[in-house]
């Protein structure tokens, strides 16, 4: 969990830094400011303002993300979904029960959804090709609903979670091996609004 969150933070910082950098480039030349660059530790409030000093170069400063993160930092919905920020949960054959690994993934996803409280998320239930097309629609529905229920139990508002079953209609792995099947039995997460 911490590693995942750090990755996201890092991404956010990188994006913000990129944004700040390009903003600064537009300001040319740098203008002397009445305040010095941010001091290393001591607060400036207690001191009288220092006399103005000419500044020849001001390095751009990366602004860290706000404590309550705006999902604008994450890019467009497509970018968010391409990154797979909400990890999928995998299932056994003809089962909608969550493994302990699945529960851990859902805990991380729940945390992320709390961090981005405006996200609306669609939980897609998928099945492998070894089941029949018709029954798999119901099985995918059951997988999606059980994941939704679990996320609600972790404190996510039910209104933020949609479910949809795709049965075996949209395999992630087109193969016909155990590995492909395991890959395709999943609840997949798609952020549909932010």
């Amino acid at each position, binding site marked *: 969990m911490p590693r995942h969150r750090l990755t996201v933070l890092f991404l956010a910082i990188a994006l913000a830094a990129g944004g700040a950098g390009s903003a600064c480039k537009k300001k040319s030349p740098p203008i002397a400011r009445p305040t010095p660059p941010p001091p290393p530790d001591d607060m400036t409030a207690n001191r009288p303002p220092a006399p103005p000093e000419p500044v020849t170069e001001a390095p751009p400063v990366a602004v860290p993300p706000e404590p309550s993160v705006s999902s604008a930092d994450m890019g467009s919905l497509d970018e968010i979904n391409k990154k797979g920020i909400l990890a999928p949960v995998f299932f056994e054959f003809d089962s909608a029960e969550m493994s302990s690994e699945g529960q851990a993934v859902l805990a991380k996803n729940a945390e992320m959804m709390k961090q981005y409280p405006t996200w609306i998320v669609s939980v897609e239930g998928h099945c492998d090709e070894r089941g*029949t*097309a018709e029954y798999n629609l*119901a099985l995918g529905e059951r997988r999606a609903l059980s994941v939704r229920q679990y996320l609600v139990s972790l404190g996510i508002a039910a209104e933020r979670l949609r479910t949809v079953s795709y049965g075996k209609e949209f395999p992630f792995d087109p193969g016909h091996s155990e590995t492909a099947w395991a890959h395709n039995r999943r609840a997949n997460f798609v952020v549909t609004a932010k």
Partner: protein
Amino acid sequence: MTHRSILQPAVSLCAAIALGVVAMAAVPGTPQQPSATPPAQEQPREGSSKISGNGNAKPKLAVPDFLAATPDAETKAIAATIGQVLWADLDFEREYYMVPRDTYASIPVPASVDAVPFDRWRELGADGVVIGAVRKTATGVTVQVKLYSVAGQTAAFSKEYSGTAANPRVFAHTISDEIFKQQRNLTGVARTKLTFSSDRDGERMKGTVYDRKIKEIYISDYDGANPRRITVNRSLNINPVWSSDGKAIAYTSYRRQNFPDIFIQRIYDGTPPESPAHGTDRIHNFLPAWSPDGTKLAFMSNRDGNAEIYVMDANGGNLRRITRHPNIDATPTWSPAGNQIAFTSDRSGSPQIYVVDADGLGQPQRITSDDSWADRATWSPAPFNEIAYAARNGPGFDIKIRDMTTGQSHFLTNGEGSNESPAFSPTGRHIAFASTRLGNQQIFVVARDGNGLHQVTKEGNNYTPNWSR
């Protein structure tokens, strides 16, 4: 007649032909042309109008190319098509031994339908021969056809049709159905249609970062010819089923905001599809099944928290819950009398077929036990009382048939690829299903005894066939 409303933009060419047949077809036996031999129906001898085989053998029929009575290229092409398609239509029911067409390529096409070289057909061993002629008219074509008894040298069936030249196959299908009715007292299916779901156009789902092939609903002739796409929403459209009048198709579609709902589309009207189950982003509806009388739909919905079977009127009224179980209840089908519903449930731990009264009041009875997975029950029409379903058999599925009277089951397919989603023909004599036996998933049709396999789709992948009545 009713034909007019059945056939509109999508198959308007059929309409013209059908109307032509209705309006202008001669009564069998009515003399249309000067004839050396009187038409069979006027003959007093009983049974003489029926072509019979030698002893108990199936009658042997030949269908040579039809004569192009006007010598232009279009008429010749129509004449050739009708001959080929009629041969295949008559072959389909396996009531006749159809003499292969290449064995009589050397017998010259007669100058008229009455100048038949019977000695040549006798040499070939044919019991009957269908001779036809196509003539271009100001408005289309007329097709004259006679089925001759080779032994009696008399016409057992004689009729003339008129229609547009746009779809010659409809002439062949009509002739075939009428020959079966008159000769064998059999309802043919040459004018019935299939519907199925297909990804053949290779389009991708919109609004997603994943590479997802859409599926749209198609219809085709019973033999796969004349495929037409009837949905264009670039989404997932699956499980199409014909209404009993053949004018509407109900299906599951994700067309609206990407949640699954049931739509009824009047395919010849061009009106927007109705969604009688009133799906929402929370209430999902799947797998419609028309009641035999065409007034109701059974379907699966999550509206009470998990997959259950419901029944509603076709307009959405009188919604009734049929199953009540925390496990999955899916994939309904109606009994021919409409008083029972078979469905799939995993309440025993694996998907199995159950039967319950259509009022939902009785206890569901489990009817499959030899299979580790059983789904997509489809109940035969009368006079058969069978349920076909997909049963796990080895790594894939095979189509299995259970006789509901005797309780006996047998496999219809035998391990070639995976075989799913069976659908009976309207007469119960054939079954369509989807199979991966050739790689991609395709629709096949097979006779109820497992013989006479036909592949009816070839492009892309094709799923969940259903047969019009």
